[in-house]
């Protein structure tokens, strides 16, 4: 589970690593018009008793933030989150008194995008005149208070030549940490595609900027850049993703993975860094190809495992819901379902791998009831048997072990499940 939890209050706030707010994207997430703070407030009450997240990140910049921001920050601070972060646009934080009120409500970290040393370029990248001026004012306000300014720089073809001076500017403005994000647009327009930077241009300039942070002892974190092009600084790559708080009515779109940029690397299974490296954004691959000449897989020291591609769900209390898969076929086993390693349904069988305490493994096989076939036991609709035994157990021991499982199936088989393909 992630250490951070994102709460999208509205679609106006800046998402980490992006230049624009989600509402400015071609397919904005359809966040609820009227934000209802109650699910999150309830979550905070539960979280206080059993804290699971280190940090909450409140994201917003619209009317719902104005209306609920303070209450949410205070609830989060009381709700067991050690850090409360606000991601909003800097114009909201140009007034020192406003910043003070936000900090007093419990917000300890505020992230500010700074993308160029020259205001015109920054404003153009943000698509908002005056944003550079506001960002600098916001940083100056934060410097006066006990709030951490987290500066992030989105690296594009337009500003890649000035990464080091931007980092220097952020350091001078009091940044406690600088996050460097490779630009990774979702469904980029042609002009957005032009902002992508090939790796051989990006890596050396990023490394110079990192050296500047290192010299100033300011923490630098890198996102969306392949570990293997960064040498020792590859250790700074952070590919973790915060969890998104949502309840289905309001936050479905915010949790929709299709609404976020995706990444891949063709060398993933061969590379030891694959678990901490996302590879390249799809936008990048579509512009520059897979960059196979530049990526160098680091020899693997542990086995690679394919990703779990089941749909993750978090309930209103933030508990991860297990994917149900073949739920009814597992239900057939009652409490014994806990002891099987899943179920595979084939054309004619349901197969449940089982392991006994002495390590003996076998597969419990249920197939369509056939009175003419030899079988171990029968339920209303099925023949029940076991096969593929590997291990020391005797037949008698296996029969004793599997007996209660089969009895449960017989009791639970009400005829509503079938392995007859023609039903």
């Amino acid at each position: 589970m992630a250490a951070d939890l994102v709460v999208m209050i509205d679609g106006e706030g800046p998402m980490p690593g992006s230049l624009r707010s989600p509402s400015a994207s071609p397919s904005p997430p359809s966040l609820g018009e009227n934000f209802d703070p109650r699910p999150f407030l309830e979550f905070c009450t539960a979280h206080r008793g059993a804290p699971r997240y280190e940090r909450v990140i409140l994201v917003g910049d619209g009317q719902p933030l104005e209306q609920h921001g303070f209450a949410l920050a205070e609830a989060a601070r009381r709700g067991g989150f050690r850090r409360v972060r606000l991601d909003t646009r800097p114009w909201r934080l140009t007034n020192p008194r406003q910043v003070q009120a936000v900090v007093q409500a419990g917000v300890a970290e505020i992230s500010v995008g700074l993308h160029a040393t020259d205001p015109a370029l920054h404003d153009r990248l943000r698509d908002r005149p005056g944003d550079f001026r506001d960002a600098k004012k916001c940083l100056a306000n934060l410097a006066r208070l006990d709030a951490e300014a987290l500066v992030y720089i989105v690296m594009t073809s337009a500003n890649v030549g000035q990464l080091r001076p931007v980092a220097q500017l952020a350091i001078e403005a009091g940044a406690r940490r600088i996050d460097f994000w490779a630009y990774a647009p979702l469904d980029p327009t042609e002009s957005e595609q032009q902002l992508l930077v090939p790796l051989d241009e990006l890596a050396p300039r990023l490394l110079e900027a990192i050296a500047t942070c290192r010299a100033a002892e300011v923490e630098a974190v890198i996102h969306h850049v392949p570990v293997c092009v960064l040498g020792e600084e590859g250790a700074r790559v952070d590919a973790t993703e915060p969890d998104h708080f949502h309840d289905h009515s309001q936050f479905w779109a915010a949790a929709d993975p299709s609404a976020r940029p995706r990444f891949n690397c063709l060398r993933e299974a061969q590379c030891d860094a694959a678990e901490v490296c996302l590879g390249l954004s799809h936008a990048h691959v579509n512009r520059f190809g897979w960059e196979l000449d530049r990526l160098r897989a680091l020899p693997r020291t542990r086995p690679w495992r394919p990703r779990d591609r089941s749909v993750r769900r978090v309930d209103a209390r933030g508990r991860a819901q297990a994917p149900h898969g073949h739920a009814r076929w597992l239900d057939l086993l009652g409490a014994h379902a806990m002891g099987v390693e899943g179920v595979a349904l084939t054309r004619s069988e349901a197969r449940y791998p089982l392991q006994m305490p002495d390590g003996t493994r076998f597969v419990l096989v249920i197939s369509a009831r056939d009175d003419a076939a030899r079988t171990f036991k029968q339920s209303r609709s099925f023949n029940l048997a076991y096969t593929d035994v590997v291990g020391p157990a005797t037949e008698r021991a296996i029969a004793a072990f599997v007996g209660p499982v089969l009895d449960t199936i017989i009791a639970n088989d009400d005829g509503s499940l079938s392995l007859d393909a023609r039903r």
Partner: protein
Amino acid sequence: MFRAVSSADAVPRPRSSLVPSTGQDRFFDYCLETYAPRCDPTGKLRGESLLWNSLEAAGVSEAGYEPFDAIRAAAGRDMTVFGVKWFRARLSWELYFYDPQREDRQITASALRRALAGVLDIRPRVRDTTRYFMYSFDLDAAALGDGQVPELNVYLQFHEGQGGHSYALREDACELRNTYRFHEPKREIEAILHQVQRSMWVDFTAVRVADIVLPELYECAKICVAKKRSADAIYYSGISIDQLRWFLHRFEYPHAVTSFVDRHRADFEHLMFDVGIDYRSRPDGSLEYPKTGYYSTL
């Protein structure tokens, strides 16, 4: 014997494209290999809904649905893989029947031929002793109208590895159509790149691998590379509903298909889908995708 069907005489189809999932559903990819659904299927839709939607999108009338109903009755629920093909701005269909172990005597090519008599006339005959592991046939608007199936595709498997050859069989002819091989995308990427880059149809001085090994589909369960008579092809199996949506938009399927899948995104999220893309270089060196298709089970 067969009723003519065309979009011109289309009558409104009384049943809905939306077929709800049941607790009995089994989940197979387009090789009829089982997978665990990605989440609880309760309250969601069966993959066959995509087939009914495509028939509706193509303007097929009620009578044109009959062969599909008959196929399902003969082969069994979940047991037929269907492909919806998009070629020259027309939708057509392909039905695939697997039984590598010959577990089911009712779906040998000859048994199916008998079972469908009166609905579809499958003209070519395959000997039951031929050791095919799968066969398929195409249905387009014309075939749905006259009930004639002049060609069967018969698939013979390699000894090792997943893959094989396919032959097009007609009453009076049989010819090799394609050779294909499946790979695990991540563990076997070198083999995939090798297969893709050895091509009679693509000029790789002008085409990037990334336009064939597509980043949006790379996160999948299997990639199959095929060499065909007039193009190469790549198949991605075990993709999510979001990847399928991307695919349908990317390859410009009819609005009636894309909007249906977009609208029912959440209803299909428990399923995995499969897609195929034929590709080749144009005379000017750029890449074209003459034919694509998506798959699920009936």
